[in-house]
């Protein structure tokens, strides 16, 4: 999985673990919009006198221009490098000196910044966050070392990790036209090529109040925060923002496979990603049935894949399925398995493919669907426990094309899914020509290699460490 998709899947997983009894609302947020277009969402949670202040910009790696991949993430880093009022590097120090924590993250569809602070520091962090929306003032002497930091981040997350390199290649094959093709952190040589002017221009183009959502979760009320929000964020003028393009993928015509061999691989794995509709692109009616399908296939020890491959056939050590519906463009339905000790990949792979074929051909049972829906919706009971869950779930949805109503209605939408819909979605999505298969294998001689059928497929990639 790419970062984008891993994060999308993580957002999905959030719902799995977080998601209240059916019919209940998830977070019961309140919302209002400033004259400059900034949407504000308030989720009260009064356990402790703290607040999470989170600003989501509707821009991510999917909005980058060719040749400048990773720029959205680079801009995230540079947001800590100074404004007219706050010197470079001071932002996080000020937050910490006030007993708070702060950080930020970027995905293919959004960039988010947050500070967790005591309620009486909300005024301070709003001042700081609205300041860097409007008044970023950057210097090349801070930019050059930060580019090195990002390159180290890339080495740490991707280049040092065979699984991550494989994911990066799989994603690049799965999304041929969509901007999700490239990694969120960017290709190395493009990270090396940005100019500070690129950062400044990207910030200017996208970091506008009308392109952002502010989420406040914790010991606060709308009446309390509204004057503060108007004072700080209301002063930033709206400006035109470009449309967000997620070019649809052409209908996939051939199964693809990517193999990464590495001398240090001791535990191989087999991964498959199918191009799948999201809430916003493709046949969007499948988005809820596919969540139920992922639960049936990969949700825990009693799921189809784990039960069949690990418990009954004793071939797999792990077996997972994942699907993140939340993407502006198309998304992916992902399967990942690794063999039990002593089991060759040639034994495991046909067994996995047989399970996938079975569910695509014969569909699912009423009982399976009923249980999966119960599991998904009961987890919603935990949604209001942590003051961090609400902002993450609502923020990622609102920043990638969703609405509060859609999030709040999630348990009901899941409850309404039928077995026929799940079976139809499985049939439509789990087709080999829609997929990329990724194999992680050791380079030692004599180890299993992809079987004839896989070799006959359009094998696009096979590379080792020397390429890096």
């Amino acid at each position: 999985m790419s970062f984008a998709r891993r994060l999308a899947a993580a957002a999905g997983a959030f719902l799995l673990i977080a998601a209240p009894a059916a019919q209940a609302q998830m977070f019961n947020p309140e919302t209002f919009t400033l004259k400059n277009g900034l949407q504000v969402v308030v989720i009260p949670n009064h356990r402790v006198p703290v607040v999470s202040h989170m600003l989501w910009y509707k821009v991510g790696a999917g909005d980058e221009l060719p040749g400048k991949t990773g720029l959205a993430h680079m801009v995230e880093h540079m947001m800590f490098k100074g404004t007219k009022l706050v010197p470079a590097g001071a932002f996080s120090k000020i937050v910490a000196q006030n007993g708070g924590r702060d950080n930020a993250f970027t995905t293919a569809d959004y960039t988010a910044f947050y500070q967790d602070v005591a309620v009486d520091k909300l005024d301070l962090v709003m001042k700081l966050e609205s300041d860097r929306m409007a008044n970023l003032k950057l210097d090349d002497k801070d930019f050059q070392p930060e580019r090195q930091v990002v390159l180290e981040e890339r080495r740490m997350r991707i280049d040092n990790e065979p699984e991550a390199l494989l994911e990066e290649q799989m994603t690049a094959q799965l999304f041929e036209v969509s901007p999700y093709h490239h990694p969120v952190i960017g290709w190395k040589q493009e990270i090396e090529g940005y100019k500070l002017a690129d950062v400044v221009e990207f910030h200017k183009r996208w970091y506008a109040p009308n392109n952002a959502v502010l989420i406040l979760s914790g010991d606060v009320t709308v009446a309390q925060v509204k004057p503060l929000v108007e004072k700080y964020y209301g002063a930033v003028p709206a400006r035109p923002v470009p449309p967000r393009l997620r070019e649809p993928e052409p209908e996939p015509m051939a199964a693809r496979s990517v193999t990464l061999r590495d001398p240090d691989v001791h535990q191989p794995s087999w991964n498959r990603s199918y191009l799948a509709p999201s809430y916003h692109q493709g046949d969007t009616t499948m988005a809820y049935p596919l969540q139920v399908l992922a639960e049936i296939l990969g949700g825990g020890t009693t799921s189809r894949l784990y039960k069949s491959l690990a418990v009954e056939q004793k071939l797999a050590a792990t077996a997972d399925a994942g699907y993140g519906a939340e993407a502006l463009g198309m998304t992916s339905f992902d399967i990942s398995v690794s063999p039990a000790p002593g089991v060759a990949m040639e034994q495991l792979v046909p067994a996995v493919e047989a399970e996938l074929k079975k569910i695509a051909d014969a569909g699912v049972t009423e009982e399976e669907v009923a249980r999966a829906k119960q599991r998904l919706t009961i987890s919603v009971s935990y949604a209001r426990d942590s003051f961090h869950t609400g902002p993450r779930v609502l923020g990622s949805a609102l920043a990638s094309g969703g609405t509060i109503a859609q999030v709040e209605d999630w348990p009901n939408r899941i409850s309404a899914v039928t077995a026929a819909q799940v079976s139809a979605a499985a049939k439509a999505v789990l087709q080999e020509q829609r997929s990329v298969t990724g194999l992680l294998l050791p380079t030692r001689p004599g180890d299993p290699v992809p079987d004839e059928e896989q070799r006959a497929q359009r094998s696009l990639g096979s590379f080792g460490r020397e390429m890096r």
Partner: protein
Amino acid sequence: MSRLIKSFSLAAALLVAGLSSAANAAFDIQKVTSDNGIEAWLVEDHANPIIAMNFAFRGGAAMDPADKGGLSNLAASLFDEGAGDMDSQAFHGQLEDLGIGFGLSADHDAIRGHLKTITANRDTAFSLLALALSKPRFDAEAIERMRGQILADLAHQQQDPDAIAGRALTKALYPEHPYGRAVEGTEDSVKQITADDLKAWPAHRLGRDRLIIGVVGDITPEQLKPLLDSSFGALPAQADPIEVPEVQAAATGKVEIIRRPIPQSVVLFGQQGLKRTDPDWYAAYVMNYILGGGGFSSRLMTEVRVKRGLAYGISTGLSPYQHGALFDGGTATRNEKTAQSIALIRQEWQKMAEDGVTAQELADAKKYLIGSYPLQMDSTGSIAQILVAIQMDNLGRDYLERRSSLIQNITIDDIKRVARKLLDNKSLLFVVVGEPSGL
């Protein structure tokens, strides 16, 4: 992706180190004692229909026999794999259908468990726990499957430079002590564990005299009491004595290099630390924040990341065990600059040992360490964990009220004295995994 600093902390032992304290008046920690004398700490919170219970038995993987390393880890992994007349599929089916979280795990010093449920399923959740603790099945199918999963995980660790470095560091610092072995054991030792070993394990290890319990959420003391008895009442009154020797880290000052064809070297380092009960704990805790524990505000982060772009993250931490302690940290730097990062770490180590901290640094550290306390209280589960950690380290039920002043009272001189005593550049041991040049 996140700017979060990668954590290199060796032990989950940060536990209490991680808790800060302050404006906690919101929490009333009640001591609840059941009819049969089982004690739990309880924070009632009826805002949401959720109950979380965390518990721990003192004595962990460090008690495993040397030739059966991984015994506690494998045994703990089997408690949600079938009990009474329910096999693994039936037991997991109940947990998953009802949204109940349950499981046991092992670390060096304790066997830990957690149970999380919505109020509507409270009685079922506690009865599943009772069944698991009193009648675990240890079916052959489940034993072999969990053994296979652990072996696969051990194989996977061999391809992860962070895991390779972590293993090598603890092994180097504790060459002769169980803390130097992995909680999961080795491929060989895991294969040595028999069904009889596993079936005998609970009676030796899960004694009520070792038990610590923290409960948070939608439950009253009167509702909790009978559930404590039904859940834990059938356990043996006493477990085996904990015979783990006290140990000092074998910090030799060496740099151990493990060659791997990767572009970035993972660097971990460590030396002797302070135990949680040490009178100088809080001075060391504040010092660590300033040196390398404080994220974007720490000295090491400023020197290594911000000024020079040598790493995405660098951090240090106090890692106390029950029978020893480490002060350790980690970073990752491209191969050709690894030597420079190590030199900077040594330089900051020396500087702190010689000069201590400034008044401004101390004031800022206190504000963060005290002010950020309530941020830890994020969910019922995280508060339950804290209740267990406080008991594990015998900090007292009033700890959360006292914590702010314990930190507030630390002076510049305290830190100077403790830094000089604790930080030893000559003994600080490094493990590097990668292809570093110039080392």
